[in-house]
């Protein structure tokens, strides 16, 4: 699977680069917006079917219950603490490093928002940190899912409610759907507030 993912990702990257810098075959939004959203929604629909068909999933969720909210809480704390440590290690502004990490992988939010609050350079960092998180989640899911069903969810941060949900469910099974979705959902709600709050300490 990982071989195909890397190959298709590289193909897509090359196609996107050539299309915008060399010969424009299609408008960029057709692929990066319409095809992307369309395939995502179709995939979530299929994931829903797989989930609904499985007789045991509901019972498993009932057993776990509200405890499931522990996951996004732990991911949020871990992420910001990781940003703090990285700030020290890199010798850059520690609050800035925490702010960029608080996108939790949602790079289309973190890039522009951090850019507005702390300037273009931090914005670029916010974009890159969170984009790399999404990429890492997809590329390593076959490995991280072996460490337990919550590990890929922890790696994915806010992305586990949409873009990385399908790959996580494919590897961790349909019972991971609710954990993954709810964790990503909570972190997506928290991300803008966390970024703004941390940036105000800068």
């Amino acid at each position: 699977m990982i071989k195909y993912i890397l190959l298709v990702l590289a193909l897509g990257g090359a196609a996107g680069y050539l299309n915008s810098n060399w010969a424009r075959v299609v408008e960029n939004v057709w692929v990066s917006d319409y095809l992307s959203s369309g395939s995502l929604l179709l995939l979530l629909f299929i994931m829903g079917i797989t989930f609904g068909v499985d007789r045991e999933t509901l019972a498993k969720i009932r057993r776990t219950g509200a405890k499931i909210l522990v996951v996004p809480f732990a991911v949020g704390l871990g992420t910001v603490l990781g940003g703090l440590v990285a700030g020290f290690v890199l010798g850059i502004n520690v609050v800035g490093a925490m702010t960029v990490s608080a996108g939790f992988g949602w790079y289309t939010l973190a890039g522009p928002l951090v850019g507005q609050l702390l300037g273009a350079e931090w914005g670029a960092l916010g974009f890159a940190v969170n984009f790399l998180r999404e990429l890492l989640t997809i590329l390593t899911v076959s490995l991280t899912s072996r460490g337990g069903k919550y590990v890929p969810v922890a790696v994915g941060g806010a992305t586990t409610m949409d873009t990385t949900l399908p790959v996580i469910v494919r590897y961790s099974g349909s019972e991971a759907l609710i954990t993954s979705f709810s964790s990503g959902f909570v972190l997506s709600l928290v991300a803008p507030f966390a970024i703004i709050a941390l940036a105000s300490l800068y």
Partner: protein
Amino acid sequence: MLLYIVGSLIAGIVLGYLLQRGKRRVDLSRVTFGVIMLLIFSLGFSIGSNDDLLGSLSRVGAAAVMIMLLAVGFSVVFVKAAGRLVRLD
């Protein structure tokens, strides 16, 4: 977009539930694989066609990798620890 996301998930779950009651066997792994590849392709395409993103990656890439890896590492450790604390199976 959130509405569409939740909508397609719920529509799928309802359909899956109905199929289960009708005792039909459903194997969607091939379709899933194909659509995941479409999604990955469009992700690659968005990266390749986004000059701002490519520029920011080459400028701040090393620092970004470090922040990202530590953020992810601590997330995993915290989730593992919390999972043991509240006994998430």
